């Protein structure tokens, strides 16, 4: 069984953290993973930096630019992660953009993921239609889940289509915006959370974009199975480094 499925079967308030690989320093990737697991995080998304990350806001883009300047690349990331399963057990997802994956070779990328023990991928600019027509078979062959996104604007018919194809969970984008918003969830957003919960989808959902404190995290887990924190965590490590991540994660529990 894929580790993502196991985790979601056990927990209904999954705390998922995104960080940018190779940030703040090139060799911070593995210690960040170890420290995040120690601090009680349920699921980790490893950001593979890209020069033109158009679904991300300024915080994550700045961290990506820095990581690339530090020397991060697809091959460097796989080399860093080669023995990660000796020390880290939580489900791991690589989040990136399609172009670096295409250049590495989709099958070669999936092979590396399987060998290392990566459980899923999030590739926001690989849309449903192109995934199903060109890549779904390969992903299934290597048992790598492609996590798909939905937004408040996604139609019911399309949510159902995405649910049919999805594995692992559905990534619910909380708002029409790129990453890095800092407010509370509005009534309208909560209506959206409720509406999706009521659809009884086959896949569980995690909410991302805009979770940055206990209030927003609790609000997300009220309706869905968990929350994903990205920009707020990236901002934290850029200020405080990666040594005491339990100080960061405790604000959600």
């Amino acid at each position, binding site marked *: 069984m894929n580790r993502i499925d196991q985790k979601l079967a056990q927990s209904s308030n999954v705390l998922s953290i995104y960080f940018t690989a190779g940030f703040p320093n090139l060799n911070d990737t593995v210690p960040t993973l170890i420290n995040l697991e120690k601090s009680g995080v349920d699921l980790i998304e490893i950001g593979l930096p*890209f020069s*033109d990350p158009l679904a991300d806001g*300024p915080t994550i883009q700045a961290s990506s630019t820095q990581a*690339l300047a530090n020397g991060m690349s697809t091959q460097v990331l796989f080399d860093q992660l080669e023995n990660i399963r000796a020390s880290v057990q939580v489900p791991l997802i690589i989040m990136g953009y399609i172009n670096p994956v295409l250049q590495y070779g989709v099958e070669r990328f999936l092979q590396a993921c399987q060998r290392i023990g990566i459980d899923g991928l999030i590739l926001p600019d690989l*849309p449903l239609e192109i995934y199903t027509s060109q890549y779904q078979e390969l992903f299934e062959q290597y048992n790598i889940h492609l996590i798909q996104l939905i937004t408040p604007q996604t139609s019911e018919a399309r949510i159902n289509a995405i649910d049919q194809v999805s594995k692992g969970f559905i990534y619910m984008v909380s708002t029409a915006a790129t990453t890095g918003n800092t407010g509370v969830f509005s009534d309208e957003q909560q209506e959206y959370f409720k509406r999706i919960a009521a659809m009884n989808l086959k896949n569980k959902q995690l909410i991302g974009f805009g979770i940055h404190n206990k209030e927003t995290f609790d609000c997300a887990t009220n309706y869905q199975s968990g929350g994903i924190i990205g920009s707020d965590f990236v901002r934290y490590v850029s200020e405080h480094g990666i040594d005491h991540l339990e100080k960061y994660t405790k604000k959600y529990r």
Partner: protein
Amino acid sequence: MKIKVCGMRNPDNIEDISQLDIQFMGHIFYEKSVRNVTQKLPEKNGSHKRIGVFVNAPYEQILETVYFQSLDGVQLHGNEEVALLKKLHSAFPNLILIKTFSITANFNFEETLPYEGFAEYFLFDTHGLHPGGNGITFNWELLDQWQSRTPYILSGGIAMQHTHAIKQLKNKPDVLDINSKFESSAGIKNTALIQQFIQEMKSKYSADEAGFYGEFGGAFVPEMLYPNVQSLKESYKKLIQEPSFQEDYKKLLQDYVGRPTPLYFSKRLSAQYGAKIYLKREDLCHTGAHKINNTIGQILLAQRLGKKRIIAETGAGQHGVATATVCALMGLECVVYMGEIDMARQAPNVARMKMLGATVKPATSGSKTLKDATNEAIRDWIANPTDTFYIIGSVVGPAPYPEMVAEFQSVISEEIKKQLLEQEQRNTPDYVIACVGGGSNAAGAFYHFIEDESVQLIAAEAGGLGADTAHTAATTFRGTVGVIHGSKTLLMQTEDGQITEPYSISAGLDYPGVGPLHAHLFQTKRAKFFSINDDEALAAGLNLCKKDGIIPAIESSHALAVLEKMTFKKEDVVVVNLSGRGDKDLETYINYFGF
């Protein structure tokens, strides 16, 4: 080629055929025909035009039928006189008028002359026992002797087996009229067979349903953009075919942009290069370049979609100015994203946009140039999915943008065809030369010639300091397949898939990708690509100043520089698309030549 399905009368069958990608549906109002329509047609469902076919019917009967059956056009299939067409035109200025001619072995094409200018199309049908619907083809070679300003519809016995022969025609029809060979019984069409015909007639150079040109294109967009891109894809073709859209678009192109732009025969360039060199003067468009053809089209679309706010990206500022201009014209809010570095390099264009009422927002991420401005515009669109329309400036971005922008720019080659006919008594040149950054002016200049392989398409890319150096924007020479700004294409990137910053002295050509149409034209070898270095372009630009008294944009100078690299025959007709004027580049010219 457009498709006209004729002889439709059964309501269910009409409904089925309406679902296909056809442009005209014909209904016969002629008692002696087995396909004669005797009842009111069902309400039209689909974007095709509804054409009524008449054979020597009196004016009043045609008039009544146009009203009663809500016809978009009338096909006159008998011996109707020009006077009838004039009368119909004054009664319904928007009515599409088609005049049929029955072709015999010794048909004199001069018979069509009196109808020139009064019929939107001529329809050539086989002469037979009946006024039409004889189900046999005529000798299509006869068409080679005919040339006209009026596009024609090929009719008479067209069947599945003819797809290859039609593609080989020298004088190609605009529309194919199909009827009896696609029927299961009289008046009932076989939907699957017509679908197959449409598929086979589709050009290998046009985009498919998903927006792919061969392997390039598509819409690689995050889910946040899916509803926007999808609704544009579903609505744009229908909207731009509407008569009111076409009317507004054409009127603005004529009265506001200043079209048609001249096709100018350059005597001195012709003498210099030993061929007939024509310049398509897009530099004479309002705002100084072809960019406005596209922004006029997109702003009319945005209005019809009820959008209140316009965003755009710009590199050198030309597209930003063209967008700010049409926003001022229409009274819509305008936000232009521009790389921080470009804002400093192109201060006069920043000022122009501000004078036109636009807000210019600096892109401060990444390399702070055009690609980052595009990222920022896409982010804005993600954050404002309902009220905002994104006017993309080139044939790039997610489908349907590349296709849509090419269509708005296609007016360039549409005019070239007509102008060549007047000046050279032929409607195709031997060569069309255009510069390519993203590739919108080239797409427009190539558009109506892509199908005709006798026309050589030549694209000039910016070689910068040399295509073999690190300072270049020669995307097809140095690029590899990847995804940029929602489209799969050739782009400049590292082995790791990070998009790199291109270089060219021309700010309008330093985009790291190229439109997917051009990647496809390159890969299929339909177009030939040249890499033109900075110094070659500037020398060619200065040459035009001295020879013809025209200061070209440095982008366009790249196209002119190709002339140096070609060997022509004396009678070759060569069209260079002069995409923009050089006022904006004065400082670069001054610094380079030390004036």
